[in-house]
């Protein structure tokens, strides 16, 4: 792994306050999920997962068809679809539109996709004001940080951090009471909603048969973002597609429960096009930006393509014993947790952070909770193989390759394996001396040293099993 990754992990592990914050926040979300998907609460939970997986599989395998159907339907309802291959094209589109309409102020709702693109930075660079309106995102935007968790962006900050930020960046008297901090944010953002020229959202789902975007939230900022400005732009990865509105009867039941243990989030918006004739309010213009940004690179791989089924619920983060220790900022990209670990290498190339697929004990808790049944451990294992193939090609990490070649050779020569075992045992302290705290130099290197840094080592037995068996 890179030094950077190692360092970030170490720093997070060493920060006791952060450890507590991550652990308790995820524990709460985890407990709530369990309550709402329990057999007495949702008897058809497993069937719904199977259905969701099947619908996603079908959609992804026929994605071009559904993209075109979606486009036709959006346009039939008076909206427009724009395809963008990357963040630059998205930004160019928004900037051109803003310029043409004389727009200066943009309100944004929480969108991992726009986070992935670094959209805000690009827009601000060109003189537009792009304000995050989800409370957690608003806070991390003020702090110039990345979100920490898919559904809890400011998980790592305390009310005192927020008080400092608000005083410094909003020029308000210091306030540490959480309800009052929320009221401050509401008041500031209310002005923005009412003055904004453009509202930018993501999309939880794109509904091909309706030409609609579906958005879920608890605060109400998405409703305002998509209702008060005259222009609404929804930016979504092409993989967000589902075929029919009726499929939402499956997906919405899974999304709220899996992510936060809510039966439904407070607001679920189903938006298709600008306001219709006779409708009193709503935007005059409606755009859906369909984003590639590397998704088409994931599509060809049949085994790993399932990574695109993700509905961004965050359940895998809350279940993952690794995420719960290293947190969101240890990950190299916008997406963290198990889903981040499998899509980052596929988008960025395995060499971007070669340690990432290995930062897992393969416990499988993620696969167990994934509402769309992505087999995350399987994809991790394939990525590990991809990393090693890339290393072999680039002639890197040759010592490790050699070690595993030796391992394979030893394990196919039983007598030699037995001899090697005896040799290793002879170097160890005699049996009966209990577990080993440390070993003298020059043995205190490599894996042995790493093991001993955290736990004791078992003593070598006097005889191996096969020796004991023979003497029976």
């Amino acid at each position, binding site marked *: 792994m890179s030094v950077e990754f190692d360092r970030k992990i170490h720093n997070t592990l060493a920060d006791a306050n952060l450890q507590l914050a991550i652990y308790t926040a995820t524990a709460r979300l985890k407990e709530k999920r369990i309550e709402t998907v329990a057999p007495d609460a949702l008897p058809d939970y497993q069937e719904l997962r199977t259905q969701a997986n099947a619908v996603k599989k079908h959609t992804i395998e026929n994605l071009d068809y559904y993209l075109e159907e979606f486009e036709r339907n959006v346009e039939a309802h008076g909206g427009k679809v724009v395809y963008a291959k990357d963040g630059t094209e998205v930004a160019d589109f928004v900037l051109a539109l803003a310029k043409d309409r004389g727009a200066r102020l943009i309100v944004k709702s929480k969108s991992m996709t726009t986070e992935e693109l670094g959209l805000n930075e690009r827009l601000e660079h060109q003189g537009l004001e792009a304000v995050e309106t989800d409370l957690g995102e608003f806070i991390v935007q003020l702090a110039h940080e990345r979100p920490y968790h898919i559904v809890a962006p400011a998980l790592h900050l305390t009310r005192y951090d927020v008080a400092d930020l608000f005083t410094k960046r909003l020029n308000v008297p210091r306030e540490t009471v959480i309800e009052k901090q929320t009221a401050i944010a509401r008041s500031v953002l209310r002005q923005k909603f009412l003055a904004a020229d453009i509202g930018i959202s993501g999309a939880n789902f794109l509904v091909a048969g309706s030409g609609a975007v579906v958005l879920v939230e608890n605060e109400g900022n998405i409703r305002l973002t998509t209702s008060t400005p005259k222009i609404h732009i929804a930016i979504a990865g092409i993989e967000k597609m589902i075929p029919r509105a009726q499929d939402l009867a499956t997906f919405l039941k899974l999304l709220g429960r899996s992510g936060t243990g809510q039966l439904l989030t407070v607001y679920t918006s189903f938006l298709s096009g600008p306001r219709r004739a006779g409708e009193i309010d709503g935007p005059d213009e409606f755009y859906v930006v369909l984003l590639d940004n590397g998704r088409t690179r994931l599509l060809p791989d049949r085994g790993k393509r399932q990574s695109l089924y993700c509905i961004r619920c965050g359940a895998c983060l809350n279940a993952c014993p690794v995420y719960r220790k290293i947190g969101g900022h240890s990950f190299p990209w916008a997406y963290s947790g198990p889903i981040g670990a499998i899509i980052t290498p596929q988008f960025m190339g395995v060499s971007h952070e070669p340690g990432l697929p290995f930062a897992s004990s393969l416990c*499988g808790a993620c696969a167990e909770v994934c509402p769309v049944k992505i087999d995350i451990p399987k994809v991790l294992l394939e990525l590990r*193989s991809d990393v*090693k193939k890339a290393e072999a090609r680039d002639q890197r990490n040759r010592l490790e390759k050699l070690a*595993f070649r030796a391992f*394979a050779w030893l394990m196919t020569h039983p007598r030699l394996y037995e001899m090697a*075992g005896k040799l290793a045992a002879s170097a160890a302290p005699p049996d009966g001396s209990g*577990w080993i705290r440390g070993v003298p130099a020059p043995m205190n290197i490599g894996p042995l040293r790493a*093991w001993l840094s955290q736990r004791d080592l078992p003593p070598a*037995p006097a005889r191996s099993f096969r020796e004991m068996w023979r003497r029976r």
Partner: protein
Amino acid sequence: MGNRVSLFVTCIVDQLFPKVGMDMADVLERLGYQVDFPENQTCCGQPAFNSGYRDEARTVARHFLDTFESSECIVAPSGSCTSMVAHHYAELFQKEPETLERVHSLEKRIWEFSTFLTHVAGVDDVGARLDDVVTFHDSCHGLRELGIKDAPRRLLARVQGLELREMQPAEECCGFGGTFAVKFAELSGAMARTKIDAILSTGANTVVALDLSCLMQIQGALSRAGSKVRTMHLAEVLASR
């Protein structure tokens, strides 16, 4: 099914915890099975597979297939090794139809120890006795890949003198994860310490599990923490009289 079983003790038992293999054989023999130990066995190949070295894993897997070719029934004291064979060997040989055939045959013949006892031997009570307060750790591969949850608990419930206290949470990973334990040592250690907190909260004297990789991680952490709590493999508990 006849009454012959072959032991696949696993490399970790062979080299580090041989008593577990002997205890497992003991329990099986008491139940009337004829137990053999195919001498050519070494390892299932999981370390290579998990580290991304599939060619090397295949090499070891082929050796395993040869070693156990004629074993009607194979029993292993490990959920992760059983799962490697029963679930991941097929992935390795997708492009070799003949080997894949042999793999599919093997998948039906290999059993994790506790599942063998409850599902094949059809017993819960093996006549064991151990006066102790224990807690049980659900090893991840056994739990999530093989679906093992009840079998070990049913067996422990019938051990005379034994009190089982469930830890909260029982299903959380101990942090071993194979080479993960040394590649991400600090992280693995942190996960182990969370696990032993849960263990110590139960007040149990002993932690029982199906996998020695987990037990090695847990015992290593307990020992480092200066705790007197000990670990035992299920086979050792069931062999106790």
